[in-house]
C-alpha cells in the first residue's frame, strides 16, 4: 500500500479521535518558556483556540498515534473488525505537527491517544516517546494529555505521568456487564487498578513537592476518565453512582460522558438508535450538581424517574426541587448558602453575589433579577422583601410552567 501523505493521515487520525469528549487544557501547573529554549506556557486557565460547528472547543491537537487496533470493542470505530481506513504516525511526526501548530497559536498542546498495535506496552512506549521528544528535544512547555492504556505495564504509565499534564484512562462503560459484552478484551478490574496506580503516583508526587522543591511533577492536571452513555442498558442512576464512586476512589478531576453515536460500519450488537444528546447534557448537569452545588450522589438519584433516568425536558436541579417542594420557598435574605444553591435558576455566582449583597441591603425581587439570568424561573422558589410566591410553589402544573417550551414539530418535516 502506498504511504499516505501527512495531511491524509492527519485526516484519518483526527477523525478517529473525535469521539473523545475531553479537550480540556486547564488546571495544570503554571509553566512558561522564559529561560528555556523552546516554546509553550500554561497559566491555569484553559484556552479554546477555535470552536467547531458542533459547538465543541478545540484546545488541543487531538489525534491518535494510530487507528490500527488489536482489540475488538463493539462501540469503537477503530475496532479490529471495522472497515475504516487505517493510518499511523511516528512519534516524531506527531511532535513536529504539535510544534508547528503551537507556533502559530492554533492549540494549547497535544491530546494523544492510540489504537493498540502489537501490544499494550509497545503502544504505550510509542506514546511516551512522542511526549519525550516534545518535552526533552523541543523543550515544549505547553499542555500534554496522554490517554494511557490500562493493560500496559504500571511502570510505563508512571513514565507517561512524568511528561504529561494530565493522564486519563477510560472506564468505557458504566457497568461491568456492559464492558464484558461490548469490550470483550477489556477488564474493569484492570482499568480501575491502573486508575488507582495513577492516583497513588499523583498523591506521592504532590507530597514530595511539598518537601523537595525540585521533585518531579506527576500529571499536575490530575487524571480524568470517559464513559459511553447509551450503548448499554445502564440507567442515569447507575451512571451517576458509578461516576461518584470514581470521583471518590480515584480523586478524578473529571468524568466525561460521551453519548454513543452510531458509528459508520457498526457492529450488529449495538443499538441502532442513538441516545438523545440531551441525555449527555443532563448527566453533565448532575455532575456539576455534585461537584459545585453540594448535592450527594444519592440526592441526584432522587431526581431520576421510575426508570432510573433523569428527565430530559427539565434539568436535574429543577427536577429535584419539584420533588422536594417542602424545602421551598426560601428567603433569599436569610437562607444558608447550601440551601440557596438548591434554588433552580440560581448558580454559584448568583448565590455568592446574593450573600455579598444582602449584607448591605434587604434584597427585593428586582435586586435578585439583576443577579440572575431569569427571575421567572427563580420566582416560585424564593421569598424576598417584596415577594412571596403564595400558591405558586404548590401548583400542580408548576413543572409545565417552568419546563422550556417544546418546539412544535413540523407536520411534514423530513
Amino acid at each position, binding site marked *: 500500500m502506498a504511504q499516505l501523505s501527512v495531511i491524509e493521515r492527519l*485526516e484519518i487520525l483526527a477523525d478517529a479521535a473525535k469521539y473523545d469528549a475531553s479537550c480540556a487544557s486547564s488546571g495544570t501547573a503554571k509553566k512558561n518558556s522564559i529561560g528555556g529554549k523552546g*516554546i509553550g506556557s500554561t497559566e491555569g486557565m484553559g484556552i479554546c483556540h477555535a470552536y*467547531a460547528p458542533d459547538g465543541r472547543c478545540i484546545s488541543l491537537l487531538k489525534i491518535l498515534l494510530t487507528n490500527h487496533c488489536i482489540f475488538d470493542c463493539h462501540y469503537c470505530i477503530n475496532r479490529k473488525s471495522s472497515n475504516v481506513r487505517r493510518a499511523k504516525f511516528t512519534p516524531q511526526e506527531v511532535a513536529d505537527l504539535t510544534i508547528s501548530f503551537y*507556533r502559530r497559536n492554533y492549540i494549547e498542546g497535544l491530546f494523544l491517544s492510540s489504537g493498540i498495535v502489537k501490544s499494550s506496552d509497545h503502544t504505550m512506549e510509542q506514546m511516551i516517546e512522542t511526549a519525550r521528544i516534545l518535552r526533552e528535544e523541543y523543550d515544549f512547555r505547553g499542555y500534554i494529555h496522554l490517554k494511557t492504556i490500562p493493560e500496559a505495564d504500571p511502570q510505563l504509565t508512571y513514565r507517561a505521568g512524568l511528561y504529561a499534564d494530565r493522564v486519563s484512562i477510560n472506564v468505557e462503560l458504566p457497568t461491568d456487564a456492559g464492558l464484558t459484552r461490548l469490550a470483550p478484551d477489556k477488564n474493569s478490574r484492570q482499568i480501575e487498578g491502573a486508575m488507582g496506580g495513577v492516583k497513588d503516583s499523583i498523591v506521592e508526587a504532590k507530597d514530595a513537592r511539598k518537601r523537595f522543591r525540585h521533585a518531579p511533577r506527576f500529571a499536575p492536571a490530575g487524571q480524568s476518565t470517559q464513559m459511553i452513555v447509551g450503548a448499554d442498558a445502564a440507567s442515569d442512576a447507575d451512571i451517576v453512582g458509578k461516576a461518584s464512586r470514581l470521583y471518590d476512589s480515584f480523586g478524578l478531576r473529571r468524568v466525561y460522558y460521551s453519548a454513543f453515536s452510531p458509528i459508520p460500519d457498526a457492529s450488529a450488537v449495538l443499538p441502532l438508535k442513538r441516545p438523545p444528546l440531551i441525555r449527555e447534557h443532563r448527566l453533565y448537569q448532575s455532575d456539576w450538581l455534585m461537584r459545585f452545588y453540594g448535592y450527594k450522589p444519592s440526592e441526584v438519584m432522587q431526581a431520576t424517574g421510575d426508570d432510573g433516568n433523569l428527565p430530559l425536558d427539565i434539568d436535574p436541579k429543577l427536577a429535584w426541587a419539584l420533588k422536594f417542594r417542602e424545602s421551598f420557598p426560601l428567603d433569599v435574605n436569610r437562607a444558608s448558602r447550601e440551601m440557596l444553591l438548591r434554588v433552580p435558576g440560581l448558580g454559584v455566582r448568583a448565590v455568592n453575589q446574593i450573600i455579598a449583597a444582602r449584607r448591605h441591603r434587604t434584597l427585593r425581587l428586582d435586586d435578585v433579577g439583576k443577579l440572575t439570568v431569569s427571575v421567572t424561573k427563580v420566582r416560585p422558589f424564593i421569598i424576598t422583601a417584596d415577594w412571596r410566591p403564595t400558591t405558586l410553589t404548590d401548583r400542580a402544573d408548576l413543572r409545565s410552567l417552568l419546563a422550556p417550551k417544546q418546539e412544535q414539530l413540523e407536520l411534514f418535516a423530513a
Partner: protein
Amino acid sequence: MIPAQRIRADTRYVIQLPEPDDFGFWRERARALVQCDVPPDRIAWVEPGGSGDLFGRGDLRVPSPPADAPQIRVSRRFLQLAKNAALHSDPERFALLYRLLWRHQANGRVMEDKADNDVRRLEDLDRSVRRDSHKMHAFVRFRVVEDEGVEGSGDEHYVAWFEPDHHIVRANAGFFVRRFANMKWSILTPRLSLHWDGETMREGPAAERGDAPSGDPAEDLWRKYYASIFNPARLKVGAMLKEMPRKYWKNMPEAALIPELVAGAQQRESTMVDAGTLEFEERPETLAAIDKAIHACRKCPIGELDNHAVMGEGPQDAALMIVGEQPGDQEDQSGRPFIGPAGQLLDVHLERAGIDRGKAYVTNTVKHFKYVQRGKRRLHQSPNAKEIDTCRWWVESERAIVQPKLLLAMGASAARGMLGKTVSITKARGTPQMLEDGSELWITAHPSYLLRLDGEAREKQERLFDADLAAVAQRLAEMADS
C-alpha cells in the same frame, strides 16, 4: 499644580489622558482630585482623540492636595477590577472609576453591594475586557514570513494581525512573551503593534491588515484538522457562535470552512434521515407481487449494486420455511435461491434428515447479493444490521403469505431477519422460539459456515447441523400428526 487653598467650589476640570489604557496616569490624577474633594460631576476625562470637552472649557490643571489631606480609601477588589476596566473602549469608563472611588470614601465596602448599578457596570466592563483578552490569547493566528529563515531554525519571523474590541494589546504582551519566549514574533493591530525578537519588546505604530502575511504553509494541515475533528452528527452552530462570534472569523484561517461544514452536515443528516425513514407501500398480497417489487427495491445500498433480486421458491402452502442470509454469486446469476455450493451442501443434509426440499419454501433474509469486486471475482460481503432490518419487510411479506408453521433460520443474519435482534447461534440453536404469529422459529448455522471449516471442526459442526435438521424434521412430523 494649583495649591488646594485656591480651589473654587465651582471649578470644572478636564483631564486629558496620554494613552487610552494609561491606568497609572488616571490613578495619580484621581488620587489628587479625591484628596481635594472634587466631586465626580465636575471632572471630564478625555482620552486621546476623544471629544470629551463636555464643559466647553475647564481647568486643565490638577490641584495639588493639602498636606493634611486624608488617606484615600480603596478596596483591593476595586483596584483589581479598575485596572482591567480602564482598558475598555467605553469613553465613560474613567468617569465611572472616579465615581466609585469617590463613593469609597464614604463607604469602604461599596464593592460588596453587587446589586448596585455602578458596581455592576464596573463588573460588566471588567468582564468584557477579560473576555476580549481571552479571545486574543485564543484567536491570534501567527503566519510565518517567508524568505526570513527556515522553520525550526529559530530565525523565522511569525506575524499576526488582530483586531481587539478594547485597549488590551499592551496589557497582554506578557502572555505572548511567556508563551513564545524563544520565537521572533509581531502582533499587528489597528492601534499599535508589538514586536518581540526573543529578548526585548518593542512597540510600533498602528498597522494595517496588509502588513501581515496573507497565508501560511501549515494552514492546509490546520484546516484539515479542523474539518476532521468536527462531528457532523452533532451540529450546534449556536454554541459555536456564542464562543466564536463572526467578527473574529476573518482573521482565522479555519473559519472559511464553517459554511461548507455546516451545509455538509445538514445534507449528511438529511440523507441519514432519508435512509432511516423507509416508506414501504402496502404489503404485496401475492408472491408474484413481491417478486416484482424486490427487483425494483433500492431501499438499501445493496440494491444499487450490479445484481438481481432473488425470490424465494417453493409451495405457497409449505409448512416449513427455510431462510438463509442472501443470494450468492451463482444464485444471483440464475435467479434461484440455494443452488450454489452452500445450497448443494444444504441439499445433502436435508436429505440425510429426511426433509423434502421440494415441500419447503426456501428463501433469503436479504434479497440482493452484496459483494465487493476483486478483479473478475465478486466476493461475498455480509449484510450489516441496518441492511438486514431494511430487507425484513420482504421476508415478512413472504411469511405473511406462506404462513409456515415452522421457520428454520440459518446463520446470524437470518436469525436477525426473523427476530429483529442479533442472537448468538451457539446459544440459540437446539431450542425453538415462538414468534408473534404463532409459528416456531428454529435457528441453526448457515451451510456456508460448514464450507469454510475443515477437519475435526467441520465434522463437529456438521454433526450439530444434522442434529438441528433432525430435530426440525421430528417437529414437522409432530405438527403434521396433530
